[in-house]
């Protein structure tokens, strides 16, 4: 967004004179929504960010949390929504590049990538083009840099047909002792390493702060092409530089390019800088202004003590990493930029990077009422078989194999629980012990578009449950809030409510939000916002990866139990939408106290070896969760729904497809069931044994001793594996 007249006036006051063209460009980049967070800064203070094990909270390039006494886990989330709408392949790929570099700034080794993709329906041609481009972009980039991509999330909805949400996250690990937490000192040299600078993405962040123009051809200035080969060389050489103690400060050049990297570094550490722009290595001839704000990819800034320069240069040269020494840090807090000896900018770092905040107007549109309307009259119940098959073949539920098989999810030899078989991914630390961590990304755009406060809270809860289901203790999350235009009060209201939902439940679950991002202006050229979405990425500690739990049924003769209470909560459910085209009603209530109780129970039961499989219940409800476990394990089930602990349920479909929170389905070893019941009683957890695992491939549900659903597992398997057909076309 170009600077407003008030902002230009403010700049005049700050400088005490007319700003140069370069200075204006620097302020425009720095003060853009994407870089300054002006519309969200005030509300973000509501989030709980501290915790015993938080090492680096929000504010730095990446948050870090103590995973074990001696090991930290570094993780961050980012969005690349607008570039992906215009060029899905490069937009998604460069999103991956950016998030990995942020992890590198703490000296951590990137060990996992997550992609949370909210895209259009596969049968819409434009959306189909976006889906393929996005997945291929992530695949080509992530695979090349040798970081496994896993544990992502996907949602397919017409609201995203032309405006996809591409949220990516990266996780790194590092022994606490080597985390790069130092600061540059006056006299340290400023070195830019990585790709040569070009005209890529000029004013890219300013672009992200504008709604998508109708004629996308004009957006070419914002398109950036990624180069994963250079990224891999950056990763490798930085690991060496950090392990040899040659750099104490690393920063990524992301949104706002060189300008924001220098200003944020200086402002955070009370420094100034002298920059000689002509020294920056470039691909083409650029003006000083372009050099300052270009967003060419795969570039990082390192601060190097002059005495270490020679060694640093040796490492970079041997790895074929191009670099340039563009200046040095000073102690006076002023950024002085020169080009061929002529001064083009002189600005106080603190003024340039000073946090801006605007309190936006916010009120609910009439749309918002649909989340308050109880569903008092439902259409007649369909055939349960038809409903189950329709749900399993819904792109939101079906197996995402078409996506995750395009990602190398095993490189690094850390992936213990692989995509498709667990509610979250589990990776080992690879330090000789059996310690590890679990990670997962989650969101539900339907919930947040109907009821943003509770919807966002439920997204946190779903992530929490997914980590617990594999046997991990959740320790922290990061969040990405994707919303519409902050200047429109009816869009801003959704953002505000989602944020408040996250702030509320994370305090109740005692889960610190160690970092996060906000993406605004996700609307089309007609000003309609996409479904506002809260994406949560959570990590959990795993003490012994060999005990990690997967969800497929394992042993015929074992028993099946449902943990938690089921309520009639079909509002906002996949069932209601897929079967009747309805997207409204009170969405399931978040239940933090039950989440905590049930989580303690599940983790204890896993530790005691009482269970064979665990699956959390979310989209599609109980019946879908049971079907998934059966299909993946290739074992049948016989379940009596009368045994399911429920309250106020009037109809069978409410029982089968309600998306009530805080519930799990578990496969219990038949000789350990009594122990499990005693544990449930002791912890005050509702547990109902509802059936058993069969050795024949039939899925049977009965009520009052009458079979209400009996279907061959093959039919369910076929429905569950239909996503490839939906995306690639054909029968």
């Amino acid at each position, binding site marked *: 967004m170009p600077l407003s007249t008030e902002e230009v006036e403010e700049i005049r006051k700050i400088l005490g004179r007319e700003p140069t063209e370069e200075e204006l460009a620097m302020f425009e980049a720095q003060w853009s929504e994407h870089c300054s967070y002006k519309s969200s800064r005030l509300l973000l203070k509501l989030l709980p960010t501290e915790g015993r094990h938080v090492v680096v909270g929000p504010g730095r390039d990446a948050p870090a949390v103590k995973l074990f006494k001696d090991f930290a886990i570094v993780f961050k989330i980012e969005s690349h929504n607008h570039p992906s709408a215009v060029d899905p392949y490069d937009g998604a790929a460069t999103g991956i590049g950016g998030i990995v570099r942020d992890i590198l700034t703490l000296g951590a080794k990137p060990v996992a990538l997550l992609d949370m993709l909210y895209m259009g329906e596969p049968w819409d041609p434009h959306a189909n083009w976006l889906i393929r481009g996005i997945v291929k972009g992530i695949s080509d980039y992530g695979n090349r840099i040798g970081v496994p991509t896993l544990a992502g999330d996907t949602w397919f909805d017409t609201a995203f047909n032309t405006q996809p949400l591409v949220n990516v996250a990266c996780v790194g690990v590092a022994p606490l002792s080597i985390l790069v937490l130092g600061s540059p000192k006056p006299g340290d040299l400023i070195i830019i390493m990585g790709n040569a600078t070009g005209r890529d993405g000029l004013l890219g962040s300013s672009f992200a702060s504008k709604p998508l123009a109708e004629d996308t051809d004009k957006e070419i200035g914002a398109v950036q092409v990624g180069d994963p080969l250079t990224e891999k060389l950056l990763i490798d050489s930085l690991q060496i530089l950090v392990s040899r103690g040659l750099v104490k400060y690393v920063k990524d050049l992301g949104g706002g390019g060189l300008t924001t990297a220098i200003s944020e570094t200086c402002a955070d550490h009370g420094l100034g800088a002298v920059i000689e722009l002509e020294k920056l290595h470039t691909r083409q001839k650029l003006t000083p202004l372009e050099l300052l704000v270009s967003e060419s990819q795969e570039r990082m800034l390192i601060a190097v003590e002059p005495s270490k320069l020679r060694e640093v240069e040796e490492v970079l040269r041997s*790895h074929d990493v191009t670099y340039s020494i563009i200046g040095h840090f000073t102690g006076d807090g002023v950024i002085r930029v020169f080009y061929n000896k002529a001064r083009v900018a002189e600005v106080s770092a603190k003024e340039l990077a000073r946090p801006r905040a605007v309190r936006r107007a916010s009120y609910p549109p009439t749309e918002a009422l649909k989340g308050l309307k109880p569903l008092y009259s439902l259409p007649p119940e369909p055939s349960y078989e038809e409903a189950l098959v329709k749900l399993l073949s819904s792109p939101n539920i079906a197996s995402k194999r078409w996506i995750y098989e395009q990602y190398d999810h095993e490189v690094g030899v850390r992936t213990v629980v692989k995509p498709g078989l667990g509610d979250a991914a589990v990776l080992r630390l690879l330090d000789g012990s059996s310690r590890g961590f679990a990670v997962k990304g989650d969101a539900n755009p339907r919930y947040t578009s109907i009821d943003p406060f509770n919807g966002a809270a439920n997204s946190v809860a779903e992530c929490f449950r997914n980590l617990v289901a594999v046997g991990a203790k959740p320790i922290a999350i990061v969040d990405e809030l994707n919303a519409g235009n902050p200047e429109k009060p009816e869009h801003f209201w959704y953002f505000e409510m989602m944020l408040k939902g996250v702030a509320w439940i994370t305090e109740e679950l005692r889960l610190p939000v160690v970092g996060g991002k906000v993406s605004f202006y996700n609307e089309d050229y007609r000003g309609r916002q996409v479904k506002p979405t809260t994406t949560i990425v959570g990590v959990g500690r795993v003490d012994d990866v060999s005990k990690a739990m997967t969800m497929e049924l394992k042993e015929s003769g074992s028993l099946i139990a449902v943990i938690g209470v089921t309520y009639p909560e079909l509002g906002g459910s996949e069932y209601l939408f897929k079967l009747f085209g309805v997207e409204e009603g009170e969405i399931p209530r978040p239940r933090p106290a039950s989440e905590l109780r049930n989580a303690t129970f599940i983790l204890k039961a896993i530790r005691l070896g009482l269970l064979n499989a665990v699956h959390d219940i979310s989209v599609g409800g109980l019946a879908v969760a049971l079907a998934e476990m059966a299909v993946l394990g290739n074992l049948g089930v016989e379940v009596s729904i009368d045994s399911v602990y429920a309250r106020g349920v009037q109809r069978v479909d409410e029982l089968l497809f309600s998306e009530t929170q805080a519930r799990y389905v578990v496969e219990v070893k038949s000789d350990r069931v009594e122990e499990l019941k005693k544990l449930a009683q002791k912890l005050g957890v509702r547990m109902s044994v509802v059936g058993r695992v069969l050795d024949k491939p039939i899925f049977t549900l009965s009520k009052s001793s009458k079979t209400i659903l009996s279907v061959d597992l093959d039919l369910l398997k076929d429905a569950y594996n239909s996503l490839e057909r939906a995306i690639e076309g054909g029968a």
Partner: protein
Amino acid sequence: MPRIAIVKFPGTNCDEDVRHVLVNVVGLYAEIVWYKEFTVNQWDAVVLPGGFSYGDWLRAGAIAARTRAVEELVEARDMGVPILGICNGFQILVEAGLLPGALLYNDTGRFVCRWVRTHIERPRGPWLALAKDGQVLDMPVAHAEGRYYIDEESYKSLLLKSPMLRYLQGFNPNGSLYDVAGVGSEDGIVFGLMPHPERASEAHLVPRGFSPGGRVIFESLSYSLKRGW
């Protein structure tokens, strides 16, 4: 103490995985050597690991095959130093002419990462000393350019006389001709395969229904370096 070199090119990304298995699982001495610093006569065995050397630009393995490091490997072929090419390493060996055939784009047009079942035929040489003819080996693949191609004549005259790894029925992930997953030189000293044995050498990384089929390759090397082959 035998020394194994794991050669790393710009873009190689499975080097540390191979080193982990060689050192921590099998107990051998192995070092990751940057391609600029590699000379074959300092090493008792060489592994070209997986990844995307030079981004897989032009053709997978094409640019790495023209580096001095690989040219030296070709010249030193008669020295009989065991060479293993895994995935991108296999692509490099094929591009360099150390193994026959060519590796083309998967017939699905997409990258594929999944576990497959293979079996080894005519195991011979240092990399397969402990494997039995027909032994089933489970391993994961992760590649976009793994479709093996060879003309019928060469298949009959070369491949059927050499150690060969074949995808079992239903497990060919990429349309490889004759279901070839890996091939060796006739004496087995040079062996290349698309699946990743280093990802299939430890029980906890193996999904249910499969077993760690990659381990035998590294254990065979360890055995052969002590006893000869």
